[in-house]
């Protein structure tokens, strides 16, 4: 805090067209000392060019191992309002749909116990309530659960699963991404709330290869909708599209497998070669639709770079039908966790474990058969391991 409580740098960020988070903090600061001191300590960071938050201690609610991130500032005397500044992760509903009533109930609770600030949403997907004190956690938990909400994940556990809008609004969807997300969330309550894994595990579900949840980049388990049969074509609508669009240049030439052709009146797709990348369907949603035999490609391992380099998820099951009650995917996930529990080191994500041990161990223990779709290309090095059985 500048001595006079002024925040000139932050004030500057109230200007401009983009919505201002500073305005939001100021709104909250009207009612909350925590929010007020957040503003002050943030101004201090803007001057010092370093953070003023210390490592969080372990705080939480009874019987849960996660869901709350402890946070303390390093200048509690100067900024007593943020001496504690914990966040509470509320598990968002699949697809992030809300009613105004439900949201208002949550906001009321937060005004009562917290800073009045929130992230809609956290980058994993939670509804993040920012800034409260340790002694308020149980009350917050009690009141939110009473309204039907529960905590999301943090620590070495299943993190809050998330998904795209899928069937609820998107015509491209090949799986019921929201139902899958909700079902898995409920099947895995224990894994979500009581950290027992080597490290965090994230699940994201996208209804098609557009991957609107960025699952491939951000989830240990990425479930991506796809189809097995032919793209459905409405040739009349293709013709319609051709009025506004150069189908050859914008669609056929950009098809990665070059399996399309357009002669001005008929669009042909060699579906055997199509890899379901979605480009043509994206360009002509009225004319083209995914096939009817729908399911998902199951991919494993996506994560950020700490510390062996980022990974994107890769194919472990090319095609899986996903229908209620989704026992097949539950089963696979449990098997993967078992394997990971057995072999993973502390703070080793499942993708890193596969990278360290090789895919074979994971495949053998989950019973998945090796298929070429798992790899871009077979190995080029000659360092093949043979088990004694292989050599008879």
């Amino acid at each position, binding site marked *: 805090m500048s001595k006079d409580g002024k925040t000139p740098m*932050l004030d500057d*960020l109230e200007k*401009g067209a*983009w*919505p201002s*988070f500073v305005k*939001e903090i100021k709104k*909250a600061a009207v009612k909350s000392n925590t*929010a007020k001191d957040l503003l002050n300590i943030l101004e201090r*960071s*803007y001057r010092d*060019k370093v*953070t003023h*938050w*210390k*490592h969080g201690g372990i705080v939480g609610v009874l019987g849960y191992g996660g869901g709350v*991130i402890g946070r303390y500032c390093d200048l509690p005397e100067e900024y007593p309002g943020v001496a504690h500044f914990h966040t509470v992760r509320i598990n*968002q509903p699949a697809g992030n*749909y*809300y*009613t*105004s*009533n*439900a949201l208002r109930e949550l906001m009321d609770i937060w005004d009562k116990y917290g800073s*009045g*600030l929130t992230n*809609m*949403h956290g*980058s994993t*997907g939670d509804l993040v309530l*920012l*800034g409260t004190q340790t002694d308020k956690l149980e009350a917050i938990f009690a009141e939110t*659960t*009473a309204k039907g*909400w*529960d905590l999301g994940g943090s620590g070495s556990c299943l993190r809050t699963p*998330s998904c795209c809008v899928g*069937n*609820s*609004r*998107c*015509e491209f969807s090949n799986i019921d991404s*929201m139902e899958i997300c909700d079902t898995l*969330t*409920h099947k895995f309550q224990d894994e*979500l*709330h009581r950290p027992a894994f080597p490290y965090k595990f994230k699940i994201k579900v996208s209804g098609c290869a*557009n991957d609107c949840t960025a699952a*491939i*980049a951000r989830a240990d388990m990425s479930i991506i909708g796809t189809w097995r049969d032919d793209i459905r074509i409405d040739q009349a609508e293709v013709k319609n599209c051709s009025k506004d669009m150069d189908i050859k240049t914008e669609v056929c030439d950009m098809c990665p497998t070059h399996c399309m052709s357009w002669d001005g009146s008929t669009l042909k797709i060699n579906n055997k070669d199509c890899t379901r990348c*979605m*480009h043509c369907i994206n360009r002509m*949603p*009225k004319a083209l639709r995914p096939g009817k035999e729908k399911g998902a490609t199951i991919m494993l391992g996506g994560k*950020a*770079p*700490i*510390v062996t*380099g*980022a990974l994107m998820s890769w194919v472990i099951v090319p095609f899986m039908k996903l229908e209620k009650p989704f026992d097949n995917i539950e089963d696979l996930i449990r098997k993967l966790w078992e394997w990971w529990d057995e072999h993973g080191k502390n703070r080793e994500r499942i993708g890193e474990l596969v990278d360290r041990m090789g895919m074979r161990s994971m495949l053998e223990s989950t019973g998945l058969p090796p298929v070429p779709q798992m790899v871009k290309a077979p190995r080029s090095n000659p360092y093949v391991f043979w088990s004694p059985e292989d050599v008879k």
Partner: protein
Amino acid sequence: MADKPKRITDIGAPHFSKFLPPVIAKNYGKWKYHEVIDKGTMKHVSETGDELYTVRIATPRLVSTDYVREMCAYADKFSGGHLRWTTRHNVEFFPAKDQVEPLKTALKKDGHLVGGIGYGISNVVHTQGWIHCHTPATDASGVVKAVMDELHEYFTTKTLPARVRIALACCLNMCGAVHCSDIAILGIHRKPPKVNEATIANQCEIPTTIASCPTGAIAPNPAAKSVKIKEERCMYCGNCYTMCPSLPLADAHGDGISIYVGGKVSNARGVPRMSKLAIPFLPNNPPRWPEVVQAVKHIVEVYAKDARKHERMGEWIERIGWERFFKLTGIPFTYQHIDDFTFARDTFRMTPTFKWE
């Protein structure tokens, strides 16, 4: 807590069906096609013939409870009490056809930015920064605000050859998952951790701390019940600090921002790819980070001018070649651009086929 209610646990999130607008509940899984009406509005049409209108606005993500109440008020007035957030932190309303324009007018009047749909720049996925985290090398919300103040027209009106996804992460942990973004704004440290001799013996388990360093840069210092940093080995990843609070890396001069470009996650046309280093370092210059803002804007503009329609940033760069990317943007190519991490060999140009510039 006198009248403590019965303890409820493990109920998970409420089922989404509680929150769906009726038209969605009715047409769930039956959508046939959609049309983008303008940058802030689209229409989905169902096999039943029903129509769903969506209007989208930008949010700062870090919002007050009053902001959420304000959104609820729009929802009540124009959207049957229903609203949602997108995976990139925008808010969406579902007005009936005749409510689309009134809603947009109201939103704009209140200063909200309607947009984010189709080929432009949507909201910036980002992280906590100086608002809430202990490891950041820069702020998050402030940088996003500064960048988007400059680029907001790509949200509301201007189009680009394809989607440009900008993301920010305030440290290498990359909570913003920036590593597959068209433009990634990444906070970086450039100085090794400073050992806090006073606290380390109490705060940290020395063997775990030593083991946490991927490059073996931490050596024991048993005399002082502490550790020593072999500074030339440190790559400032911060993993040690995550394990041991007595090894802070933050430094007003050392910290700053690097820009990575050309990543994506969608599989349309080509496979997902990681973002690659474009600018190794720009200083932290709050409150408006002018160097960062200019750099991002410049890259967007060069891309806008040179790329073909539907070509994401990374697709464009791959077509023209990195040598030409550096030429067109005028960004200098430095030692830092050349990978020297574990898998570096895969990035070396193992062919004499390249462009002169």
